[in-house]
């Protein structure tokens, strides 16, 4: 196929050529960035929380009309009630859980007080039932002993003698490995790391905690506050039953409490859905925009090429009469489209990078990887070829006799 005649023909259709190229360029820039946003959101929402989500329920309970110092026995009685329910594997009380997007964070240091570098960590209140309830895997050391679990008043200083940390936190604090038995500091007094668990995500799923999303600490303390979260692990197939039975049993044992009707009892599956709603929604929106955009660009190419074919019927007839095969005509239009497409994607790549640069500055996004741009280029070139196929086929069917007609 000779390119020169195509180029000189395109020179007669400058406006149309430029419009298609610009459209391809803009589409490429938007689609690349949108796909990149989708990929980031999907990575975000497919991270594991480290807990056995399929079997877990969270109950938000608020005791009414009690002083913080009287909560100990209430909490113990409630936990007994929950653990005795048939179908329940285990239960514990805590301040917060993964996927809740709210909780405590603090700096952990290898030196006492405010001296020394601080590593961010989330604080989970826990007891000796926590590992079993959440289904956490101990990779070193041991669980808490029942005797180590103590009450914690809301404004006490938190510096328990023992802590369990996640592997991510242990690796960060002790890059040489072997964290068990070492001392860390939340305040002035040391806490000994007694165990290390494989993974436990922090309560926050995005934004500010994204750089330390695996750095969690379990403290053997029970928070003596009017509101508590009970986490219940159930046996296979018992989730629906316990979801109703657990709050009912709690209310039956003591009426002076509030378990909200709407979000008081939630499965971890629901919590995951809620907490990643924005990420999933953004991915869907970008996906829809990509599809519609590609559709419109393809339709635009079909429209304009059809017009060109209609306009050049006579020339096509002349070429056919002079011996060009149908295949020659078909490949003429395909090559023409490819030339325009390549011009478009070259502009589009620059535009995509510029747009990504701007998104990085304005919204703290990451740099787009070349793979996405390359993927976008291939998609658009193929789309162009596919779109031009129908009008090009019609052109190839123009009979040579057209050359002899005047209109």
């Amino acid at each position, binding site marked *: 196929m000779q390119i020169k005649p195509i180029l000189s023909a395109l020179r007669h259709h400058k406006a149309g050529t430029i419009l298609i190229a*610009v459209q391809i360029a803009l589409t490429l820039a*938007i689609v690349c960035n*949108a796909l990149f946003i989708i990929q980031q959101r999907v990575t975000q929402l497919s991270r594991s929380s480290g807990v056995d989500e399929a079997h877990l329920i969270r109950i938000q309970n608020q005791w*009414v009309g009690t002083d913080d110092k009287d909560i100990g026995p209430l909490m113990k009685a409630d936990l007994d009630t929950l653990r005795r329910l048939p179908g329940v594997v285990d239960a514990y009380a805590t301040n917060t859980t993964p996927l809740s997007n709210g909780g405590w964070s603090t700096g952990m240091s290898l030196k006492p007080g405010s001296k020394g570098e601080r590593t961010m960590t989330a604080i989970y209140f826990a007891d000796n039932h926590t590992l079993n309830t959440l289904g956490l895997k101990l990779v070193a050391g041991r669980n808490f002993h029942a005797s180590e679990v103590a009450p914690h008043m809301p*404004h006490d200083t938190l510096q328990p003698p023992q802590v369990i940390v996640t592997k991510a936190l242990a690796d960060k604090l002790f890059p040489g490995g072997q964290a068990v038995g070492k001392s860390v500091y939340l305040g002035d007094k040391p806490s000994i790391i007694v165990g290390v668990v494989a993974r436990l995500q922090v309560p926050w799923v995005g934004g500010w905690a994204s750089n330390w999303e695996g750095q969690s600490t379990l403290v053997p303390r029970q928070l003596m506050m009017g509101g508590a979260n009970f986490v219940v692990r159930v046996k296979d197939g018992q989730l629906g039953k316990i979801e109703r039975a657990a709050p009912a049993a709690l209310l039956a044992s003591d009426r002076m409490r509030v378990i909200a009707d709407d979000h008081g009892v939630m499965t971890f599956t629901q919590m995951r859905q809620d907490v990643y709603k924005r990420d999933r*929604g953004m991915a869907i929106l970008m996906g829809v925009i990509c599809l519609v955009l590609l559709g*419109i660009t393809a339709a635009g190419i079909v429209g304009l090429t059809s017009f060109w074919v*209609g306009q050049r019927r006579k020339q096509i007839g002349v070429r056919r009469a002079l011996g060009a095969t149908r295949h020659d005509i078909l490949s003429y239009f395909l090559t023409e489209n490819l030339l325009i497409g390549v011009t478009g994607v070259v502009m589009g790549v620059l535009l995509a990078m510029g747009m990504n640069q701007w998104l990085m500055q304005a919204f703290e996004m990451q740099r787009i990887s070349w793979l996405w741009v390359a993927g976008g280029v291939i998609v658009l070139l193929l789309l162009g070829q596919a779109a031009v196929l129908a009008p090009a086929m019609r052109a190839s069917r123009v009979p040579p006799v057209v050359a002899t007609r005047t209109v």
Partner: protein
Amino acid sequence: MLAYYLRLGVRSLRRNPMLTLLMVLAIGFGVAASMTTYAVFRAVSGNPIPDKSAKLFKPQIDNWGHANGRTSDDPPDAMDYTDAMALMKTGKATRQTVSYPVGLSVIPANPKAKPFNVTGYATYADFFPMFEVPFQYGGAWPASDDTQHAPVAVISEKVNQRLFGGGNSVGRSIDIEGHRYRIAGVTRTWNPQPRFFDVNNTGGFAPDPPEIWIPFTRAVDLQIPTWGNNNCNGNVSPGWKGWLYSECVWLSYWVELPDAAAAARYKNYLHAYAAQQQQAGRFDWPPNVRLHNVTEWLADQHVVPQESQVSLFVALGFLVVCLVNTIGLLLAKFMRRAPEIGVRRALGASRGEVYRQFLAEAAMVGVAGGVLGLLLTAGGVLGIGMVFDPDIARLARVDVTLVALTLLVAVFATVIAAFYPTWRAARVQPAWQLKSN
């Protein structure tokens, strides 16, 4: 003549139904995507208190500095108790209030009814006139109740409905966590968006309106903890008092100032206060204070969600692609009619007439695209809950302005897109066209 051009336009559009449909679809989708995302953007970037946003100010005092390895140069978003009480005591502004969110259990008088939770604020009497809280019955408690740490409460319409069946309950009493409070007022449902006075704890958007207000001084006496964020930098002494007088920040402080001059004076006062703290040895850094009004504060806190901005920009980009597409299709359509234009020009039509004819045809595509866009926008606004938080999605709504804007954008955009093809059409040389035939 315009009516004639419109008739001609309809004929021409019906001659190539596929091409016409394509253009209408492109305009419709482009406009709908932009308008749907714009509806959200408009909702989240609105001014929650337009008539007073320039008179309400949020003071910030840096009580953290660079202690404990902190790197930020900005003062904390919230205020600590010590500074809030010092500012409150001098009372330099026309009105001032400090508040923090509380979650309380209300015990109904009827022993059969279950206790329930309400959320609201512990605050000062000035809160209500400052933020223009509308009342159904009664009003704010008197300022003397603040100094007397009185057990009074303001409740919302909803709580009043639940406890007293919606009647005038002013003067009656309510049991909150075992303590009795006298009701001073019942508010109408009030939930300004963004919740500018409590961005620290809500991020700007809270789905449920506040339901209860009690005096700050009383709440502190009862050691009611904050329902919101508490950020500490450095060590905190044990116990409630230890926490109260720590450098932990958890309070929202707001002042009302009549004009810019008063704001400048207040900022000087904040500066002097911080300098005094530095001299006293509490801060070992120079004064670092801020005084933002409502709109500045919302911008400073990036209240408009990232999702909303990114999707608005992507949707606008999408509209541009749709317009480029329309330019191409209109060009094809108009140039195909070069012979017809040639005949009209030869018969004496001016370039202006050609312009009018083709722009009228384009405007019709615009109107059709606008109507389609309107339907898609309505669907989009309904489906927006899939993409944004429900508390944000519910703010977006279709109203007269949005309908008008959608149609206007569609027609305007199409006519803009039609200018180049029309210009080309008007330049058709009649002689050349006539000759070639």
